[in-house]
Structures are given as structure tokens and as C-alpha cells.
């Protein structure tokens, strides 16, 4: 999967994994406390937060794996920090990352417009919901309640991860620090070409 990646891209992806691992952990605690009061529904509308590194990383690096890997790493970092949900989280990270990756794979990694990014965010939502359905036993809940959870999660994925991810990556591009990565080249191309 990492063939054709430069080492600096792999390190960048890992560092994004670390930064967002910390962000995720912060929101995990907020979400957990919230869920204690409101129940699992509390998570649903903010679920997109946990997909965002996939979108940002893929939008910047634009190579196969750029959505799956950082999401997995962010989950792993949450685990390494010692106080997270643990290895189970790595699994959900993989599944969420696969959801986003699938959308990009369908375009053969050629298109990165807003629509595709939103689809990828929604894809992460769908995948993670199927996984959650199985693991957390949503089957036991009322179908209409489950449908509501599903809709909220997919919307959250498309909006928070898709739109939010693009916004963050574009802001980062504006700082001029992404020179030498695919996102900057797509914008400018070879200066003499």
C-alpha cells in the first residue's frame, strides 16, 4: 500500500494521526460524558469528528491508503495514550477509514471535489454504523430509533468530516506550508509547464 509514497508523506500522515488522535480523545471524553446523560444518540450528530483525519489526509496527500492509515493511526494513538477505549478503537478506526477510503477508491483517486469528500465522510459513517450495529448490539433497539441514529451519523460524516475536513485542509494550504504535497501541486502544477 505504501509503494510510491515518500517518507515525508508517511511521516506527515502519522503526525496528523497523532494530532487528531489527541483531538479525538478529547471529544471521546466529551461524548462519553454526554452519552451518559443523553444515551448513544448524543454521539451520532458529532460522529463526523472522528472521520475528519481521513478526509484531510487524503485531500492533501492523494494516494491510496491516505484515508485508511491515518484514521487507524489516530485510533492507535488514542490507545497508546493509555486512557482510551483500547484496541477495540483500532478496529473501529480501520473500519471508519475503510469507509472513507472506499469512496476515493471508486473515483480511482482522481477527484477530490467537495462532493467526493462529503461522500467519503458519509461512507465512513455507513461503515462505522454497520460495525457499531454489530458490536454494540443496536439490533436490540427500536428500528425507527436505529434509523434516526443512522441518518444522523451519515449526515454528520458528510458535513463535519467532508465539509469541515476540506475547510481545515484549505486553511492549511493558505498558510503556504503544504508546498511539495499533491494538494499544492494540483493547485499550481509545475511552474514552467
Amino acid at each position: 500500500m505504501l509503494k510510491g509514497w515518500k517518507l515525508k508523506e508517511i511521516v506527515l500522515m502519522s503526525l496528523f494521526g497523532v494530532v487528531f488522535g489527541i483531538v479525538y480523545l478529547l471529544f471521546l471524553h466529551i461524548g462519553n460524558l454526554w452519552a451518559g446523560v443523553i444515551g448513544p444518540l448524543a454521539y451520532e450528530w458529532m460522529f463526523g469528528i472522528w472521520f475528519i483525519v481521513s478526509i484531510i489526509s487524503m485531500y492533501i496527500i492523494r494516494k491510496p491508503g491516505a484515508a485508511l492509515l491515518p484514521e487507524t493511526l489516530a485510533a492507535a494513538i488514542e490507545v497508546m495514550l493509555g486512557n482510551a477505549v483500547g484496541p477495540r478503537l483500532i478496529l473501529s478506526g480501520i473500519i471508519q477509514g475503510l469507509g472513507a477510503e472506499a469512496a476515493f477508491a471508486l473515483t480511482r483517486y482522481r477527484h477530490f471535489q467537495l462532493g467526493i469528500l462529503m461522500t467519503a465522510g458519509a461512507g465512513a459513517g455507513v461503515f462505522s454504523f454497520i460495525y457499531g450495529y454489530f458490536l454494540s448490539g443496536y439490533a436490540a433497539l427500536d428500528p425507527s430509533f436505529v434509523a434516526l441514529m443512522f441518518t444522523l451519523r451519515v449526515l454528520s460524516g458528510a458535513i463535519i468530516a467532508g465539509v469541515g475536513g476540506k475547510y481545515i485542509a484549505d486553511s492549511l494550504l493558505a498558510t503556504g506550508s503544504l508546498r511539495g504535497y499533491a494538494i499544492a501541486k494540483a493547485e499550481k502544477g509545475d511552474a514552467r509547464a
Partner: protein
Amino acid sequence: MRRLLHEMNPSMKFLAVTGCILALAFFFNPWTPLLFFSGVVLLQVLFSQTNWKLWSLAMLPFLIGAFGYFWTTLVFGQPGEGPVLWTIGTISITAQQWELAWSLSLRVLAFSSISLLFAFTTKPVHFIQSLMQQWKLSPKLAFSVLISYQFLPVFKTEFEQLQQAHRIRGTGAGSSPLKRLTALRRLLIPMLAGAVRKAERAAFAMEARAFTGEARSHYAEIKIGPKDYVLFCLFSLVLTLSCSAIFWA
């Protein structure tokens, strides 16, 4: 004895933990997760040196989360069959629902306990090295993760400095929690810009020291020995005993 879990091969431990979690997902009775939770804590008491104060602190959020699962399952769960235990307003709770609520919330605790066991007994560096040696994890990925991990304290310093610098610009000055949260948002872009810069420097430093991601020798060899198999069997035993609850509960 008290070091056994710390010395267990991290890849094997990870496999055992993941296997247990996947298996538990198939059980919807309250006894299986409860037994599993007790078994895991017992293992950790016997074979590890755990700071239990820290452990309790880490467990707390999950306890609250578990409570959330408990009552939502009661309120929003499918009514199911069986006698109605009691009725509050328009909600009537059946025996099946009651059992399910216990099961799902105890499951949260069971998952958390085994995850914490892993987190409390595994050094990140050893885990990555083991993944590289046992599971052929790409060294490029492995060392990128390790280098990222080394950056954690650097990020922390940078985070604090940014926060302080922003304070003088008048953000986050209002101490309402909402204002503080929006002030945090402003830190993200500078943090990420710093990460981009560091990524390139770190990658160059690695390549300059002849790192290619190809085959390498290992200074710290992490092996799988007999005691890893024994511990693996212990985990399986705890899992099997817990799962057998469906036959007698």
C-alpha cells in the same frame, strides 16, 4: 509473576484482546460480560503491576457511558417478549429488555477492562517493534509512528505556547467554556502547520541516516515464547468460561 502481562509479547496480547472483543459481541446475556470483566480484572491483579488509582480514573468515563447505554436500552429498546416487570408512564419494561440493558452496559465495561489491561501493560515502542517483527508491519510506517510518538511532548509545549500567545490577542479571554472551545479551534491550523514542517524534517533526518524502509536488523528482538502461549490460553479460558454462561444462566 507480577510482570508476566507486561512481558507478554505485545502482538500476541493484541490478538488475544481483539479476539475476546469480537467474540463478546455475539453474547446478549448480562452474565457473560460480567464474568469476563471480573476475569480480566483478576488476571490484571495477579499478573501485573497496575496503578489502580489511575486505572479507576481511566475507567470512570466508561462507567458513565455504560450508564447511558443502560437507560437508553430501557427506553428505546425493542419491547421484546416476556412479562412486563414494571411500567413508568408510557414505558413498560419487559424482563427481556431489562436483561438486555444490563448486558449492553456491562459489555461496555467488559470491553473497557480488557482494553485498559492492554494499555496499562504495554509499552508503545514495544508494541510497534513487535508488530514490525512478528507481523511484518512496514518499517516506514512503524518508525513514522514512533517518531510521531516522540513528538508528543514537543506538541504539548507548542500547544501551551500557542495558547499563551493567543491569550494576548484577546482570544479565550472570556472564561466561558464555549469561548474556550472556540479558542481551541484557532490552535488547530498553527499546530497542523507545525506538524507539516516537522514531518519533512523528521523524514529527512531518517533518510539521512540511511533509513530506506527495506530489510533491517533488530537491536531489541521481541520474541514469542512459551509463556506467551500460556497467557494466551489464560485469556481464552476466561473468555470460554464467560461465554459458557449461556448454558447455565
